[in-house]
């Protein structure tokens, strides 16, 4: 599965939302109303999913899925 699909799967599972609610180029706060606590949970889940570590400011609730994909791909060498 591609990185982007995996990211979306994590968001759907965590936030109990429908996949079609996620838009690749709208940030998580504006697009699906992610708050700062949900972001903590999201970062932990992404770290587990991709077996990597994310710094505190690498991904925020103002990141888009496209931006998150870029950060993760750079971490996992894709």
């Amino acid at each position, binding site marked *: 599965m591609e990185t982007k699909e995996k990211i979306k799967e994590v968001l759907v599972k965590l936030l*109990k939302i429908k996949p079609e609610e996620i838009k690749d180029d709208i940030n998580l706060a504006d697009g699906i109303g992610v708050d700062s*606590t949900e972001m903590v949970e999201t970062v*932990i889940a992404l770290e587990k999913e991709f077996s990597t570590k994310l710094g505190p400011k690498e991904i925020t609730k103002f990141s888009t899925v496209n931006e998150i994909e870029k950060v993760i791909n750079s971490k996992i060498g894709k």
Partner: protein
Amino acid sequence: MEKIAVTGIGIVAPSGIGRRQFWANIKSGRSFIKKITRFDSSLYPAHIAGQIDELDKYSNVSERLLKKMDTFSHMALIASELALQDAGIDIKQEDPNLVGIFLGNAIGGWLYAETELRDMYIEGREGVSPYMASAWFPAAPQGQVSIYYGIKGFSKTIVADRASSSEAIGYAKKTLGKNKLNLILAGGMEAPVSPYALLCCNTYGGLSVNNGHPESAYRPFDKKKSGFVIAEGAGIMVLESEKKAHARGTNINAYITGFGSTCDGVDRINPDPSGVQLARAIKLALADAKLNIDQIDYVSLDGLAMEVWDKSEAAAIKSVFGSRAKDILVSCPKSMFGNLLGASGAVDLIITILAMEHNLIPPTLNLNQPDPLGLNYVALEAKPAVINKALIISRGRGGINSVLVVERA
């Protein structure tokens, strides 16, 4: 001072969710105390409770929100919605700055907390949900209800053991009396049917261990009393000034006219055996309501079904009412579904209001041989009676005494 009206009732209890279903079960005198099925509790000395199994059926809360809160907040949200519906209030039409929430609970959200603490010890700190910090603490339901409805006014969560919700209602009454707010959601919620909370209640030593006969385990004021049984749920009411309720043209269920609160100041757990300070709380509540002892028709008992608690409660009633004590009808309906701890006072108040409405006093279950003697107990079966003015007694560990006066609308 203007009278404070109850204009909406929201009840979530083992014996029913919503006032109609709840009252139908209460008046029938059925027991809703059963073996705990939520988790394996068979090794606990006491493993019976009043448990609610169908919460989701009554809930409008999204899954996304639900995973951020403990059951006690979920119950508070359902009870608040039921109360607002019952009052016919669209909260979006109200000035949010003039709406408040006054809720009480004793133990916080332990089902959420203990699950996350277990994960912390198994998976490390990353295994703990970031919602833990905002889900477990006693004021969490106040936060969730205020966010859900956009409520912005002066609000409080009161922690006073089993007297918590009575205290919350008492302070809500005082606040409305000062014209600080237009309306208040007042009451309490408690969710003690979780492994750790049940363990703590067991350690406290007050629970009945009559696990073989759950329906007859909780027997307040009976000679064979063996301790209380815990229960979960929420009781939340809409309170507003009489003037505001009349202006809305809404039905008034009852008036809360008196509140008295005292401390025993003698023991970490047990009450003062003399009941002196409970008697003073009753007198304070009566004075607040400008009533005398001849005007009270009914007393809703705290009834912990432990020797020192029941005896001191009866002693306080006798000392205040003198020779009238043997005539005033008293009962402890929570014997049917269990003790909701911090939410028990709110539920007792709701039962008393429904009893006033239906001219029927719900019974004290399992009261076969009254002990102590000298009170006019309504036992085993509901009794038709007109109640115009009633007292609700709530007490907490460490000697907290809280008394409300409620009057027929």
